[in-house]
């Protein structure tokens, strides 16, 4: 029985080392419209990668996105993202295959899962790179594109030249072992 307990303790440790978390990942979106190009940034991406159970879970409080112009941020929150009703953008899913990570190596990973924003769920596929950096932390870099119309966010004709329908989202996060 002692062996069994030892086994559990060992298993727990291994399991724990396979779980990585962050609360300060970087999210950037780029809107490239004919007359205006701007980006928005937040450093409040929360994320979890569990390599043993193959679970990915990321979310961001959309209120923390900043574009550099206060009024534009207010319009973004109030008129487009409606953050009072839908405060989060979330991505939950898994990797198509779990990479075997060794320190210093980079692996291309493909995540499939549900992206949820503005009250709409959509299955998406995101390609990124996952690497184990020297301190035992995981570094994730990924980008993907979304269409605002897919998430019921209409771009009015009056501002279509200032706000792009296609938004390029980039994620960069360093996840610490849990």
């Amino acid at each position, binding site marked *: 029985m002692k062996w*069994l307990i030892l086994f559990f303790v060992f298993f727990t440790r291994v399991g724990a080392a396979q*779980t990585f*978390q962050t609360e300060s990942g970087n999210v950037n979106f780029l809107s490239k419209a004919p007359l205006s190009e701007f980006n928005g*940034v937040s450093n409040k991406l929360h994320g979890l990668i569990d390599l043993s159970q193959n679970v990915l879970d990321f979310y961001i409080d959309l209120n*923390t996105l900043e574009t550099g112009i*206060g*009024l534009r941020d207010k319009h973004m929150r*109030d008129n487009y993202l409606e953050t*009072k009703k839908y405060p989060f953008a979330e991505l939950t899913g898994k990797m198509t295959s779990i990479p075997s990570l060794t320190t210093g190596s980079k692996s291309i990973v493909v995540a499939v899962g549900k992206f949820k924003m503005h009250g709409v769920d959509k299955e998406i596929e995101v390609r990124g790179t996952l690497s184990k950096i020297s301190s035992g932390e995981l570094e994730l870099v990924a980008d993907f594109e979304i269409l605002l119309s897919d998430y019921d966010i209409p771009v009015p004709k009056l501002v279509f030249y200032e706000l792009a329908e296609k938004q390029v989202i980039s994620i960069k996060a360093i996840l610490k072992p849990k």
Partner: protein
Amino acid sequence: MNRLILISLLAIFPLSLYAQLERKLENENQAVELVFHSPRHINLLTVEPLSKKTLHFAIMHTFGTLDGGIQNLFGLDNGANIQFSFEFALSDKFSLAASRSSQDKVYSVFGRYHIFQQTQNGDKPFSLSLAGGGGVNTSKYNFLPEGAPNFSERMSYFGQVMLARKFTPKFSFQLTPMLAYFTDPREIYQIEGTENLYLSLGFSGKLKITDRSSLALQFIPNLNTDLRSNFGIGWDVEAGGHVFQMYFVTSQALNEQYLLAGGNGTIGDEFRLGFNVNRIFSTGKKKNK
């Protein structure tokens, strides 16, 4: 032994709990924003703050009364009272402004301070702001037999408290107790009042009709004089960094002091067409990646 197994099981149990992160707001007291489209709503200042280091520039016009009909192009021929106003935010709570209206060539300065903002979690059920300032009438009065008024006789002041709530995403309402004081309200000034002190209570309403436009209403009864009450009805349109406001109002005044002391025409015939263009400029450093 069973207990040991149980403890061991408990030790690994948290693993499966981590399957999804708990969703947490970064700021529980997120402010309710865009209670009004801009720092002005028809004539009255609002609780809508400017972000630090942004400049709000407003060009405001009111024309002649509608009762001249097509002959005077519904008042447009009578010339406009025009006010240029610049308001700069020193912080997210405090801004300073300077304005000039053509009516009596009044130069004003005022400050606006936001005590607190309504929050989404209801911790603060409304927004509360203060504004106050003064202006000087710079018209030439050399032709007057009694001589031109001196500097202090040309002064007027105002103070107001703004209390507003966004009741629903579509409907916002503001209550504005306000006062104005003229050191020497002469007959030659373009005001109907003859008192020094004017007290009133402003009511402002905003009803969103489409995502980016609203119906605007304003009612400002005078409390201590028998001057007519001010009434205004308008249409606000938000277009990127601009807010356009078109309205009919009973007063030609554009600054607070003249708004209270200036007197009002009757609703309908003596409405005047008004038009404000609000633009917000951001002067702070833009954030890049």
